[in-house]
Structures are given as structure tokens and as C-alpha cells.
């Protein structure tokens, strides 16, 4: 217990600040903390002193004390009043710094898409990942969107938190000051697996960051479809609800599903083929498998064509109901002018992406 207090006391209970706004926040925190400690000692001290000094000597006691004094009463409202006004102004100024991104932050805009129970970060070039990578000492502007319920973007080390509200675009920003990996939590209760909606912010030097972005660009063009499917499985949070081992979760397992005939909630049925998988990703409520709730958000506009192909190939590869061929290299995506035929090198490095899970 003492060890924890000693540990926590080093940073005044807070984790070390790793963003530009931390200094102002932590200063106010310390001010209020010490003010509170002084008040608490004062109040408890007076209380205990009076209990001892004026303890009842006999049940026949009939003490008489002062009953009112307007001067004293008005007098002792002043110190708290002044203190709270100082704290208000201090807190408000700190908040405005946290709220208003500096000029230039929009150059490094990241779109944070939250869904049950997954984070997905889209960088300015359209690359997409399940962990947030940012360059150090650079203001980063975040646009927060949710496709289902309210989530909240929370990085304690950066002192940043903003709710991710469906149907609108909240914005926040931060500027990390130290290279390292930090926890990123969902702070607004969002249902069953709220507590696993945890990922990392990776703060890198500008060179490492640039290399990371380049690698993201390559992955989608070069990775074999099954590997790309596995990556999408993690990045888009499919794994929160769909298992690969046959155990039903919030949604049906992906094992052996390809080629199987599914019965839907409305009684109809259909064989799972490429088109069905595609429909299920883009319009999940359309053919709902019997026995499951309609809770899956659409990935329309987020998932790329190559990734859908990847998911399809992944499903084929783990299905006993399918014995056809499996694509082993990146296909040429229709309408994709840049990387149509660049797919003959296999991308490694998928172990560096999508490690989004808690205690994995």
C-alpha cells in the first residue's frame, strides 16, 4: 500500500505527461490536490480537536456557545470563493488549449472510426490500421466518428479524451512529446466488450513514421489475399464477434461457413458465396443469419476492395465446405489505377500491425 502511494506520489497520482497540454493540466491538478489536502487536514484537525476539547463531561451539561455571526459567516465564504474562481479560470484556459488545435494540426489529420468494439485509424493518405501511429512533436488532429453507439477516445498519457458520437464528427488533437507506446482506451460504456476496446498509440520519430506509412501502402498491394484477410480480420474488429475456430460469438464463426447454406432470420436461405460475403460486409442487416442479432455495423466506405477479397479468400481457406482454389497473390482491383499489377511480392511484416488486443 505504501509502495503504491510512494509510486503514485512521484507523479502526484498521475501518469507522467507525454503531450504538450500535460504541463498545464498537471500543474492545476497539483494545485487542487495540495489545496484539498490542506483543507482536509484543517477541517479534520479542527473536528478532532473540538471532539477532544469539548467532549461531554456529564449528561447534565448545558453548554452555551455563539449561535451566529454574520461577519464570520461571510468572512469564511471568501477563501473558498476566491480559490474556486482561480481554479475555474485555470481549468478553462487549460481546456481551451486542449480543445483548440494549433494551426497546422489539420495537416496531420487522422480519422478515428470507432465501432463495437474496435478502433480503426485512417491516415491522410487513406491507409488504415488498428493502432494509432503518430510522429513525435507534431500536432495531430483527430476527427472522431462512430458507426454504432457512443465511444470515447481516451489516452491518459496525453490527457486527451473526447466522446465519439455517431452521426457527428467530434474533433480533438494532441501533440506527443516522447517516443513510446501508450494505452488508448474507450472511456464511454459501449456494450458487451467495452473493456476490450483498448489499443495503443505508437509515437515514433518522423522517419519511422514515414516508413510505417509506406509499409501500409505496400501491404494492401502486395500481401497475399489470405494474409490481407487475416489483417482485415484484426484491423476492422471482425474478431470481436466472429471466431475462426467454430465457436459462435456475437456473430457466427467463420470456420467452415464458406460454401455452407445459411438459414436466415426471415426463413429464407442462401449458399455462402463471394457475393454473400460481400453483401454481409457492406449491408450486414440484409440477410441476417437466424439466431443472431442485427448488431453489425456496415463497413461500406471503410474496407477496401482488396481487403474484401482477402476476407473471402480467408474464409475459403478455413472452410471444409469449399475445395476450390485459393488466390495466392494480390489480385488487380477493378478501378485501382495505381497497383493493378504490382502484386508479385509477398508482404511480410503483418505481425507489426493490428496488435490491438488487451493481454493477448
Amino acid at each position, binding site marked *: 500500500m505504501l509502495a503504491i502511494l510512494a509510486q503514485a506520489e512521484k507523479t502526484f497520482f498521475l501518469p507522467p505527461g507525454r503531450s504538450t497540454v500535460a504541463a498545464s493540466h498537471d500543474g492545476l491538478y497539483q494545485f487542487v490536490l495540495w489545496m484539498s489536502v490542506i483543507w482536509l487536514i484543517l477541517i479534520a484537525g479542527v473536528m478532532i480537536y473540538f471532539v477532544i476539547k469539548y467532549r461531554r463531561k456529564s449528561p447534565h451539561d448545558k453548554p452555551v456557545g455563539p449561535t451566529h455571526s454574520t461577519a464570520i459567516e461571510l468572512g469564511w465564504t471568501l477563501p473558498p470563493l476566491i480559490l474556486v474562481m482561480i481554479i475555474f479560470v485555470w481549468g478553462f484556459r487549460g481546456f481551451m488549449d486542449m480543445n483548440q488545435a494549433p494551426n497546422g494540426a489539420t495537416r496531420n489529420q487522422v480519422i478515428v472510426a470507432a465501432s463495437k468494439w474496435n478502433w480503426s485509424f485512417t491516415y491522410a493518405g487513406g491507409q488504415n490500421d488498428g493502432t494509432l501511429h503518430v510522429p513525435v512533436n507534431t500536432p495531430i488532429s483527430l476527427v472522431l*466518428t462512430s458507426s454504432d453507439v457512443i465511444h470515447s477516445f481516451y489516452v491518459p498519457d496525453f490527457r486527451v479524451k473526447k466522446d465519439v458520437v*455517431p*452521426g*457527428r*464528427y*467530434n*474533433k480533438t488533437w494532441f501533440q506527443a512529446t516522447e517516443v513510446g507506446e501508450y494505452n488508448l482506451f474507450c472511456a464511454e460504456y459501449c456494450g458487451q466488450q467495452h473493456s476490450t476496446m483498448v489499443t495503443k498509440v505508437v509515437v515514433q520519430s518522423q522517419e519511422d513514421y514515414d516508413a510505417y506509412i509506406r509499409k501500409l501502402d505496400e501491404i494492401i498491394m502486395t500481401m497475399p489475399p489470405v494474409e490481407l484477410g487475416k489483417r482485415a480480420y484484426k484491423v476492422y474488429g471482425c474478431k470481436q464477434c466472429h471466431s475462426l475456430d467454430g465457436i459462435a460469438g456475437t456473430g457466427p464463426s467463420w470456420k467452415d461457413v464458406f460454401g455452407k447454406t445459411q438459414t436466415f432470420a426471415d426463413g429464407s436461405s442462401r449458399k455462402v458465396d463471394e457475393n454473400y460475403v460481400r453483401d454481409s460486409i457492406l449491408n450486414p442487416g440484409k440477410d441476417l443469419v437466424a439466431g443472431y442479432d442485427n448488431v453489425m455495423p*456496415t463497413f*461500406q*466506405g*471503410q*474496407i*477496401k*476492395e482488396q481487403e474484401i477479397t482477402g476476407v473471402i479468400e480467408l474464409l475459403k481457406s478455413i472452410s471444409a465446405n469449399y475445395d476450390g482454389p485459393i488466390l495466392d497473390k494480390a489480385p488487380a*482491383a*477493378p*478501378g*485501382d489505377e495505381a497497383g493493378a499489377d504490382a502484386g508479385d511480392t509477398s508482404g511480410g511484416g503483418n505481425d507489426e500491425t493490428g496488435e490491438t488486443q488487451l493481454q493477448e
Partner: protein
Amino acid sequence: MNAHTNDDHGIGHVSPIWMLLGVFALLIFFTVMTVAVTYIDLGPANIWIALGVAVIKATLVGLYFMHLRYDSPFNSLILVCAFLFLALFIGIALMDTGEYQQNIGPPDTVRPVAG
């Protein structure tokens, strides 16, 4: 029996008939007026006129039909308090939602068809 209650006025204020009818006539007049005003276009003033007329009508009902004018002032205070808190509630909520409208876009504009 209590001598006080045998008094001709009984408990509470008895409204004369002319007053009830007069108030009713005024209420009808204002109703006709508020409908008539909608046929004239006064821009943003229309809604405020409509609400103003409604407040006048509500005040008439409260003061005379509901006897507030002759009642304990505390009863009026309760009603005024209710409206005051309501105004604060609506006012602050309206101000805030108005301020953040800029953050609300139609959800589908973020989802163009993927390539």
C-alpha cells in the same frame, strides 16, 4: 359550524359571470387573431407573435379561470418557477445544440462507395 364559512362568499374567490364571459370572449378574440396573423407574412416575427399571443391567453386562463389573481401568491410563484426552470432547460439545451450543429453532418457523406 365555523362562523367564517357561513359567510356569503364561502371559501375562495367567486368569479362574477361577466368576468368569466369577458375572459372567454378575449380568448376567442386572440385565437382568431393568431390564426389570422399566419396569413400575413411577417418573417421571423410570426413565431414570436404566435408565442406572445399564446402567453397572453395562458395568462388570462391562469389569472381568471384558475383564480391565480385572487389566490395565495405562492401558487403563482410555483407556476412561474416551473416556467422559469423550463425556460432555462430549453434555453441552454437549445443554445448548446445550436452551437454544435456544425459538427453534425449527414452520416452517409462519410461513406462514399468504396472503390
